[in-house]
C-alpha cells in the first residue's frame, strides 16, 4: 500500500469532511446557545440544496451568488422556525427533540409535495482536475472544500470579533450571566439558530452539484454531523473541525480496506468509544 494511495484516500475523505463540518458547526452552534438538538437540521441542508437547484440550475444565476442567496434564505427560514417554535423550548432538550422531529416531517413532506421525490441533478459549475504532488483532486471538489473553509473561517471571525458573535459566545457559556450583563437573549437565540441553519443551507448548496438534490438528501449529512460533534464535543466549534477531520480520515482510510457498511459501523463504534472515554468530546466543556 503506497503512501500516495493513503494520502489520496485521506484527501478524498477531507474534501467532503469540510462540508460536513459546516453542517456540524451549525448543529453545535444551535446546541450551545439554545441547548436543543435540532433533528430537523438536515432539512435546512436540503432546503439549501433546492434553493441552489432552482437559482443555479434552473434560473442560471452565478454559482457563488446562488450560494450566498441560499445561505441567506435558509438562515431566514431558520430565524422563522426559531421565532415560531424553538424559542419556547430553550433548554428543554427532550421536548425540543420531539418538536424538531415534527418539523422534520413537515419539511420533508412539504419538499416531497412541492418538488417531487425524484433526484434532481445539479450541473457542476467547475470542471477539470488538478494535479499536485502526485495527488489528484477535481476542481469542483477543490472549490467545495475551499468554500467550506472560507465559511468556517468567516464564522470564526464573526464569533471572535463581532459584537453579536461575542454575545452568542457569552450566552453559550452562561445564559443567565449573559442576561444579567444586558445581552438580549431573544436576539441571540434567533440569530444563533438562523446562523446555524444558514451554515447547513450553505453546505447543501455546496454539495448539490456533487450529489444531486432530493427531499431525503439531509439524512446522511445530519448523521455525520452528529458523529462529528460527539467526537469533537457538543457546543465546541474547534471540536467540530477536529472531529470532522478525524471522521474524514477514518472514512477515507476505511474505505480503502472495507465496504461502506463496515465503514459506517466503524464510524458508530468510534462514536461509542468517544462517548465512553470522553463524553464531552475532545474540546467540550463540562
Amino acid at each position, binding site marked *: 500500500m503506497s503512501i500516495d494511495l493513503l494520502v489520496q484516500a485521506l484527501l478524498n475523505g477531507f474534501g467532503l469532511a469540510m462540508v460536513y463540518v459546516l453542517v456540524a458547526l451549525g448543529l453545535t452552534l444551535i446546541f450551545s446557545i439554545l441547548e436543543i438538538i435540532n433533528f430537523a437540521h438536515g432539512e435546512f441542508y436540503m432546503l439549501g440544496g433546492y434553493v441552489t437547484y432552482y437559482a443555479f440550475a434552473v434560473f442560471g444565476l452565478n454559482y457563488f451568488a446562488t450560494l450566498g442567496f441560499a445561505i441567506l434564505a435558509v438562515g431566514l427560514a431558520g430565524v422563522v422556525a426559531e421565532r415560531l*417554535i424553538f424559542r419556547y*423550548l430553550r433548554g428543554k432538550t427532550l421536548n425540543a427533540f*420531539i418538536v424538531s422531529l415534527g418539523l422534520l416531517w413537515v419539511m*420533508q413532506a*412539504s419538499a*416531497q409535495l412541492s418538488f417531487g421525490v425524484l433526484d434532481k441533478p445539479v450541473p457542476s459549475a467547475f470542471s477539470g482536475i488538478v494535479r499536485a504532488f502526485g495527488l489528484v483532486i477535481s476542481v469542483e471538489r477543490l472549490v467545495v472544500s475551499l468554500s467550506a473553509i472560507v465559511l468556517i473561517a468567516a464564522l470564526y471571525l464573526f464569533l471572535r470579533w463581532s459584537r453579536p458573535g461575542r454575545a452568542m459566545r457569552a450566552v453559550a457559556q452562561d445564559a443567565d450571566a449573559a442576561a444579567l450583563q444586558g445581552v438580549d437573549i431573544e436576539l441571540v437565540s434567533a440569530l444563533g439558530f438562523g446562523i446555524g441553519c444558514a451554515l447547513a443551507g450553505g453546505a447543501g448548496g455546496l454539495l448539490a452539484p456533487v450529489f444531486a438534490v432530493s427531499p431525503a438528501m439531509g439524512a446522511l449529512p445530519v448523521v455525520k454531523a452528529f458523529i462529528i460533534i460527539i467526537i469533537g464535543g457538543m457546543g465546541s466549534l474547534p471540536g467540530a473541525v477536529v472531529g470532522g477531520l478525524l471522521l474524514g480520515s477514518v472514512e477515507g482510510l476505511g474505505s480503502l480496506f472495507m465496504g461502506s457498511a463496515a465503514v459506517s459501523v466503524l464510524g458508530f463504534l468510534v462514536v*461509542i468509544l468517544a462517548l465512553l472515554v470522553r463524553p464531552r468530546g475532545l474540546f467540550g466543556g463540562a
Partner: protein
Amino acid sequence: MEPSRGFGAPIAGLALLAAGVVALPQLTRDSYYLDVATTILMNLALTMSLRLQVSTGQLNMAHISFMGIGAYASALLVTRVGISFWAALPIAAVVAALLAFPIGGLALRVTGPYYFLITFAFSEVVRLFFNNFFVDLFGGPSGLVGIPKPSALPWFGRALTFTTKLELYTLMAALLLVTAAVLVRLEHSRFGLVASAIRQGDLLAETLGVNVFRYKLTAYVVGSLVAGVAGAHSHQVLHSSDFGLEPMVLLVVFTVIGGTGSVWGPVAGTVLMTIAGELLRELHHYESLVFGVVLILTMLWAPDGLVALPGKLARRRRAGVSLAP
C-alpha cells in the same frame, strides 16, 4: 404505596385496558381491524416498556434494537434449529436480556443527551449488523421471509392454533396484558417511587443511598426483555429497517406525546396516534405533514403529554393562577 403522579388507580386502569382488549374482537372480526389492533398491542408493549426506562430519566434509542434481536433470534431458532415457537420465545427473550446487560451497562455510564446519542449509535450498529453481516444467517438487505406462525399449543386435550388473525391477536393480547400488569405493579411500588426520584434528581438520590446505576440498569434490562418478547411474537417477515431509526422515533413519539409521567401515557399516545396514522394513510405525504404539525403543537401546548392535560387544566381552573412548570 404512593401512586405515581398523574393518572392513579392502577387496578381500574388495568381493568379498563383488559376490557378494551377483550371487547374489540367482539365488535369486529374484520381482518384489517384485527391487524391494526394487533400492531397497536405490540406497540403498547414497546412504548410501555420504553416508558419504564424513561421514568428513570433515560431515553434509550436502542429499544427497538432489542425487539430486532428477539425477532431474529426466535426466527432463526425456529427456522434453522427447528424448535417450536414456544421454546424459541423464552430463549429469544433471554438473548435480548443478556445483550441488554453489556449494552446498557456501557450506555449508562453517560447521561442526558450523551446517553441518547450513544444508544442511537448502538442501535445503528445493531441495524447495520443485521443488514450487512452474516448475510446467509440474517438475509442481508432482503431480510428473512417465510418465518412460520406459532405452532399449535396443546391445552387440556385440545390444541390452540395460532394461524388466524384472531388467534394471533389473542396471543399478542395475552402478552400485552401480562406486560402491562407487571409494569403497572412496578410503577406503584417502591421501584417506581425511586425511579421517578432518580429522574427528578439523580445526584440527590445517589447521596441518599440509592444505587442509581442499578436502578437504571434494571429498568434497561426489563425493558429490553419486553422488547425482545414483543419482537419474537410478531413477524413472519423480517427486515432490518423494521428496527431502525424511523420506527424507533415513532415509538418515542407515541410515548412522549401521551406523557411519560404516568404509566398510561404511552397507552393514550400509542392508540391515538396509530389510529390517526391509519386514518391519514390515504393521504400519503400529507400524513407526515399532519403528523408533524400535530407533534409540534402538542409539544408546545401540552409539554407533559396528553394524559397530563386534564389534570393540568383542572388545577389551573382551581388555582386561578398558573403553576410553574
